């Protein structure tokens, strides 16, 4: 076999070759360059990418509740958190959560909440820095946490903040300590909206929930009027946050097409949360309604199956109309002590 066969062997780079860094040599005082005025040379560096630095504890509290909303939504953009000025927002279109995060800014990318959760588990630093990363063709919305480069999503796919959180004046207000005692009576059946909700008949200063077999009421404080039906999942989120923040009071603001609640007495002074959710219009079963009117004179009959069905259908149709026409929503806000 001839030993002089042609072959192309790539040249191994010499690793011992020193890296030559461009150095700036100061001209001698007597040279011509030293006598000339300094010229402004064009900079080749790219503009700085936006980044946020958030306290780890604040982000952990936000992610704890945001993951409950983001994890159950099939849309990728709604599995992400939207950062804006000193706040972060997640929503599943039914409930929206906004947490006040000092230092947060809009970085032009939606960050998946699951990624934030994993990063919180991995990194032990007291601060978390989230930085917008240069885009690549496959992933135009990249971001970096520490040394990890991760794909995000287009913030244009996220619903507008103004659509999630009302800025108008509330038409009614209420205060209550807890709705845990009422929540246990609400049904888990999401298809029956009137049973899957907590009713706030403010003229009677009550919060009411029922599943058709048991009805629980608790008194609330309100000087306004109006009947508001708030979905159970929103009240559950409020209760979870109230327990976690050890808040002693929840404040509720009801808007024309929306309602809002907030809790006071939080022991997490730096974190403030707002929840926004759709409301159904008042269409509670008549039997429960009459029992609300007189606490001692409860309706003395059961509802027939057809009666329940008609009430449920009416509730769903009204709720659907209100969502389609007026986008009925509610907002909850946690106010630090």
């Amino acid at each position, binding site marked *: 076999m001839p030993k002089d066969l042609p072959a192309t062997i790539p040249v191994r780079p010499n690793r011992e070759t020193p890296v030559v860094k461009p150095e700036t040599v100061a001209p001698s005082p007597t040279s011509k360059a030293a006598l000339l005025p300094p010229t402004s040379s064009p900079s080749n560096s790219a503009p700085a990418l936006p980044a946020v630095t958030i306290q780890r504890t604040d982000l952990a509290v936000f992610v704890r509740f945001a993951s409950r909303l983001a994890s159950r939504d099939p849309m990728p953009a709604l599995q992400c958190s939207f950062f804006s000025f000193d706040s972060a927002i997640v929503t599943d279109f039914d409930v929206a959560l906004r947490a006040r995060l000092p230092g947060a800014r809009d970085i032009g990318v939606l960050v998946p909440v699951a990624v934030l959760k994993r990063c919180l588990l991995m990194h032990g630093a007291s601060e978390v820095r989230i930085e917008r990363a240069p885009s690549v063709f496959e992933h135009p919305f990249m971001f970096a946490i520490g040394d990890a480069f991760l794909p995000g999503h287009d913030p244009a796919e996220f619903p507008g903040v103004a659509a999630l959180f009302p800025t108008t004046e509330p038409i009614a207000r209420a205060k209550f300590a807890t709705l845990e005692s009422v929540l*246990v009576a609400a049904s888990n059946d999401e298809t029956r909206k009137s049973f899957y909700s907590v009713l706030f008949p403010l003229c009677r200063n009550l919060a009411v929930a029922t599943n058709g077999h*048991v009805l*629980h*009421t608790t*008194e609330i404080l309100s000087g306004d009027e109006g009947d508001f039906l708030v979905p159970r999942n929103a009240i559950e989120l409020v209760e979870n946050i109230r327990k976690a923040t050890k808040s002693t009071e929840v404040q509720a603001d009801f808007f024309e097409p929306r309602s809002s609640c907030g809790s006071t007495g939080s022991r997490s002074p730096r974190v403030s949360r707002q929840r926004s959710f759709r409301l159904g219009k008042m269409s509670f079963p008549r039997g429960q309604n009459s*029992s609300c009117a007189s*606490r001692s004179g409860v309706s*003395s009959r059961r509802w027939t199956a057809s009666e329940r069905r008609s009430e449920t259908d009416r509730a769903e149709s009204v709720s659907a109309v209100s969502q389609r026409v007026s986008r009925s929503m509610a907002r909850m806000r946690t106010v630090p002590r």
Partner: protein
Amino acid sequence: MTTTIDASGWDGDQSLGVNLTYLYNAARFVRSDELRIGITNEESPLLIEDRPYAAYVMPMRFEGAKR
């Protein structure tokens, strides 16, 4: 397990059934030491009231119970 409770206006032959989970959920939010259950008849809800909280639980009729 049987627990005897004091009751007024109650005929000894009458019985009333209540879903245990509903009764437990209705009673566990009562803060008072004494639990008062208001019973009208077997077609009316039981009333458990302890302000600011109140619960109404629909009873069940036992099989073979006297009307």
